[in-house]
Every structure is written in C-alpha cells, then in structure tokens.
C-alpha cells in the first residue's frame, strides 16, 4: 500500500500555516476564510487517513461554518482588528506553550504510546470482524455510531438540539416581559 506520510505532512504544514494566518491577520474576513481553508485541508487529510465518512461530514460542516461565521459576524463589522501590544502576556504564553510542546514531544516519543500507524485495535477488532454479521451494515463506522454506540449518537443529536435551542433563546428580542405598572403593596 502506498505511503501516505508525505501527503499528510504537506497537509499538516499547510494547516499550521493557515492557522497562523488566521490568528495573526488583522482583517476578520481573511481570518475566517483562512480558518475555513484549514478545515478543508483537514477534510482532505481525513480522506488520506481512511475516513471518508468523516471527510464528507467535515466538508459539509465546513461550508456551513463558513456561511454561519460570515453571515453571523463578519457582515456586521469587518473593521480591522485593533492591535493590542501586550508583550508580557505574549512572552509568558509563548514560554508556557513551549513547555507544553516539549512535554508533548516527550510523551509521544515514549514507549508507552503506540507508534503512528499501529493502533492497538483492542475493542475495535471486534467491530471490524463482527460488524457486518452482527449489524448487517457494510459501513462499519455507521454500525458503530448507530448500533453499538447509538446512545452516543442520541447524545450528539441532543447537543445539537440544545445548542440550537440555546441559540434561539439567546437571539430572543427581549429577555424579560415588559413591566406593567407596578402594583403598590398594601
């Protein structure tokens, strides 16, 4: 089987650069479009990593995220971001993140963590081997999300329901009923 590492690294570096642009650019529209470019690169990366379901979902969600972000925020105000030169905060956070990165590098290189490309497949072996005979779904991912772990999917649908309900609640015109004449207590 072909080696996907070069493509993966290219995409990852592209994503990192895209994120830097998204974070540092002073125009909000550019920032939103850059972050969407990162999302599309992520979708392609999922395709390379053998996850077409996730790639499709990521792609369509990314379109929606772009529309919502532009429609919801940028159209209101696309003035350039004000510069805040808080040098101390930046230095402190850079040192802190350097520590996190070093810590991460130490852990992912340790012997306890499985190498890239060699998953343990402890429970998943059962899904792969028995998925079709047990659930009759050819797409093993679907058999996992809608049969073996359908309860999670109920939770997922509920999160979406809750956030939409919450968004509608927050977009209400007025929070409180307009006060009528106060009743003077006897």
């Amino acid at each position, binding site marked *: 089987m072909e080696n996907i590492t070069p493509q993966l690294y290219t995409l990852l570096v592209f994503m990192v650069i895209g994120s830097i642009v998204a974070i540092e650019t002073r125009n909000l529209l550019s920032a939103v479009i850059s972050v969407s470019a990162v999302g599309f690169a992520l979708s392609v990366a999922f395709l390379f990593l053998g996850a077409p379901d996730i790639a*499709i979902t990521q792609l*369509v969600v990314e379109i929606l995220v772009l529309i919502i972000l532009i429609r919801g925020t940028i159209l209101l105000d696309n003035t350039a971001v004000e510069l805040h030169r808080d040098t101390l905060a930046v230095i402190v956070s850079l040192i802190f993140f350097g520590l996190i990165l070093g810590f991460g590098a130490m852990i992912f290189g340790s012997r306890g963590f499985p190498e890239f490309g060699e998953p343990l497949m402890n429970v998943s072996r059962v899904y792969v081997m028995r998925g079709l005979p047990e*659930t009759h779904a050819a797409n093993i*991912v*679907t058999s996992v999300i809608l049969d073996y772990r359908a309860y999670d999917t109920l939770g997922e*649908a509920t999160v979406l329901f809750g956030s939409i309900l919450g968004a509608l609640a927050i*977009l209400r015109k007025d929070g409180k009923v307009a006060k009528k004449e106060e009743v003077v207590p006897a």
Partner: protein
Amino acid sequence: MKGLTVIVKTITDFVVAFIVIFGAYIVLYGHLTPGGGFAGGVIVACAFILLMLGHGKEVAFSRLGERMGHVLDSAGALAFLLIGWIGLAGGYFFLNVFGRGDQFRLLSSGMILPANIAIAFKVGTSLFIVFAALAVFRRRSFRSMIEDELS
C-alpha cells in the same frame, strides 16, 4: 433580503433539487457507503440555505415555514429517542429489535436506516432554523445601525 440576480435565481432553482436528491442518497445509503444521517442532513440544510441566499428568506420559508421547522426539528429528535424506547421493550435501550434483513441491501440492518432518516430530519431542519434566525435577527436589529454607519 431581496435575493440576488435572475441568473443566480435560475441556477439556484435548478441546483437545489439535485442537492436535495444527493442529500437523500447520502442519508439512505449511509449504512452501505460513506455518509449517513448527519452529513446528508447538513447537505439538505445547505440546499435550503442556498435557496434563502438566492431568493431571499420568504421563498425558503414558503417551502419550510419557521414553525414547521421547529416541529420537524423536535420530531426528528423524538423519533430517534423513540427508536431507543422501542428497544427498551426488548429489555435494553437502543436494542435493535427490527429485522436485520439481507446484507448489502438498502432495507437491511434494522434500526440503522430509520435512525439515519430521523437524524437527517433533525439536523437539516435545526441547522436551517438557526441560520434563518441568525440572518433574520441581523436584519431586524441592525438595519438602523448599519444604515447609520453607511451614511
């Protein structure tokens, strides 16, 4: 929101039907090919959003009213919950009590197909509603503010 030019409107009308059909395919064949209720639902929602962007909100709302959207949203979620309840009759929540049928056929794998359809309904309508709410809200509250800034 008045909508865009005639060219855009015509193309939109033409394309929307195909997008909906494609979304339906993604939903119905979710257990056999990549995709599923969620991706398909978002695609259908995108079709309605396209309609809304192209024609203005009135046309989109005439195809799917706001109240109808809420009802379908809740109904999709309830349908999925109901599938879990049906399983409880067999002793376990989400027990797959439907007949599983032949492998590799559309009507197979028991509850997965209805669950996919329920999720697609839920996701499609709820995303459409939230987009509509964001767009409508912007118009309602900011028209004066934006006009002030432009003048």
